[in-house]
């Protein structure tokens, strides 16, 4: 029943809040005081925050008294509604400039243009084009020894790939198992198979060849794994030396 106000205040689980659950209630009241109402000084919030204490009901009543709450403390739904109302009022007061221009029309427009999916991933809120983000990516790349690409999002892809393949928990524990220990091969001296007449372009061709070979190797390894998996079911090699006969 408090879903709308809880959502407006950006409470963690607006849907699962149950006013009749003592624990839920105490959590919410502490959160409201900490984040929104902030009536007590931080050091005076101790009693109210001790939600496991037997004295909590006393602290609760004192708190309502301090807020001049006109509602009977035992009528909990009414108290919660009043506290949420108070919080919304404070929230509005803090950002009056921002909210006062909001009209129903604005909200509807925004809802239509914005994707309907509710974002729960905090990363989605990041501004990927900000210079701060760009610098961060480049700094990370430098730390990981990755050559930055002019498009920092591509650099980010490379970083992600490196972390997934080389810095995964398994790779860090047993690098030998995950990271293939290849032997160096003088690829730039090898035959490309065609000639573009341009040194740089030839080298780019060689790099592409290598990437293709890498993909092909991965595919072949998977094929081999499939064969081995089937062999565990079908294989039954036999020999019978009695059958053997040496010719003349």
């Amino acid at each position, binding site marked *: 029943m408090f879903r709308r106000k809880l959502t407006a205040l950006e409470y963690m689980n607006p849907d699962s809040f149950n006013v009749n659950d003592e624990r839920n209630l105490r959590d919410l009241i502490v959160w409201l005081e900490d984040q929104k109402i902030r009536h007590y000084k931080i050091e005076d919030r101790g009693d109210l925050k001790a939600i496991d204490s037997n004295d909590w009901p006393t602290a609760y009543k004192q708190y309502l008294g301090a807020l001049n709450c006109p509602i009977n403390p035992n009528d909990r739904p009414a108290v919660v509604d009043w506290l949420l109302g108070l919080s919304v009022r404070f929230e509005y007061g803090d950002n009056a400039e921002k909210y006062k221009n909001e009209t129903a029309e604005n909200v509807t427009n925004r809802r239509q243009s914005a994707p309907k999916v509710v974002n729960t991933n905090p990363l989605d809120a990041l501004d990927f084009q900000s210079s701060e983000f760009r610098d961060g990516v480049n700094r990370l790349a430098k730390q990981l020894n990755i050559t930055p690409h002019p498009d920092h999002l591509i650099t980010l892809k490379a970083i992600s790939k490196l972390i997934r393949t080389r810095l995964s928990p398994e790779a860090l524990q047993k690098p030998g198992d995950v990271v293939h220990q290849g032997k160096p091969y003088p690829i730039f001296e090898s035959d490309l*198979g065609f000639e573009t007449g341009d040194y740089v372009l030839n080298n780019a061709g060689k790099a592409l060849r290598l990437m293709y070979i890498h993909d092909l190797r991965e595919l*072949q390894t998977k094929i081999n794994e499939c064969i081995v998996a*089937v062999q565990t079911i079908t*294989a039954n090699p036999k020999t019978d030396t009695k*059958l*053997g006969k040496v010719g003349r």
Partner: protein
Amino acid sequence: MYRSGTVMVVRQYNEELKYLERLSPSCWRIKKGFQPNMNVEGIFYVNDHLEKLMFEELRNSCRPGTIGGFLPGVKQIANVAALPGIVGKSVGLPDVHSGYGFAIGNMAAFDMDNPKAVVSPGGVGFDINCGVRLLRTNLMESDVSPIKERLAQSMFDHIPVGVGSKGIIPMTARDLEEALEMGMDWSLREGYIWAEDKEHCEEYGRMAQADPAKVSMRAKKRGLPQLGTLGAGNHYAEIQVVDEIFDKWAASKMGIEEKGQVCVMIHSGSRGFGHQVATDALVAMEKAMKRDDIETNDRQLACARIKSAEGQDYLKSMAAAANFAWVNRSSMTFLSRQAFAKQFQLSPDDLDMHVIYDVSHNIAKIEQHWVEGRLRTLLVHRKGSTRAFPPHHPLIPVDYQLTGQPVLIGGTMGTCSYVLTGTEQGMTETFGSTCHGAGRALSRAKSRRNLDYGDVLQRLQEQGISIRVASPKLVMEEAPESYKNVTDVVNTCHAAGISKKCIKLRPIAVIKG
């Protein structure tokens, strides 16, 4: 002066020479007119020594009163150039020597889109998918030397050899049908080999167009007991050591790091099975030639249009024989691994006994090649010729994309063997083909007359080579003296640029039929 059915222009030796032109120190052209009806020119690769052998053979055939036997290699190359639908050139590799119809060491490509183009069993050979497989180990010569004799005996005990030998892997008629259809996939399913073996095999060890139903009962009866046997003739299994590394990087891609590393080479084919398939096809094709009015310069060049029923049936049964040969080499791979594992008390895995590669040097394959600026689909016949694709070719294993396809060149008993790699130049000049081995210099009969088997065996012993043979009295046929020098052959391919030297191997133990 020649067998009936052979068209032969009778000319003096000096007249013959006018049709041959030197293109480069290692390459000769055979001009049109050398034999009748040549559709394309011929070309052959030689060095000074091999050149002498080639011309001597031609001169001998020009002498009046010569009878019988095969035509000289140059003539055979030219006769192949007269077959319908041939594209590019008829190519003779440095180890070329006379064979049935086609010379051994002759490759020729036919246009799949030309309705008159032919397939010829003589262009594949009787031992269909005869080939070479090389296994590496992580052992060094010093690990093997002390137990060399025991190891050779163990290999000999595991791999039955000789004419009429029978394998030790139990096979039913049904197993054989499945093996013919599945090739190395059968060996994999039954657990005789490793997944990586398939990866490192030409065609991934299976020709998909194989159809066991097109194979005669007679061939199947001959083939059934012979799976997992080495056979006789020039076939062998050898324990070899790396003698020289020419291309360090390519060798390293093959898992060969240093001199003295021990390898196992298996040279074998499709035994009596393939022989019967070829014989059956030749009979069927003689009739088809009459029906379709196909004329050739030599009766031995029996062939049929690729699109005809006889042509298709041959390709399907040839593929079954190819699969037979791969299962055969796979079975011997399994047995060699067992032999090594027993002697060293280590698993084949621990001995790192991986297949480096497996080549087919008697086969016809449908491939795409650039001819005069156009990508064309060809039926490439390689008889005593090995496919040698360049780096980055889509049909070679991922591990060899940078080096080019490994080309395994088996020497003769007691001589060196080589690993080469394919080149771009070979792709354009010889349809990605190179030599296959030493190539015979003396006929079998001549070898038997001129050599003594006791001397041959003693010489091998003096070289420190352990040898196990089923029929010692036939070893002179396979003696190094009966063959061209494999080093000459390989150096010619390297100098001509149609493949590149990578590794040289020398034998320390030989198992032979």
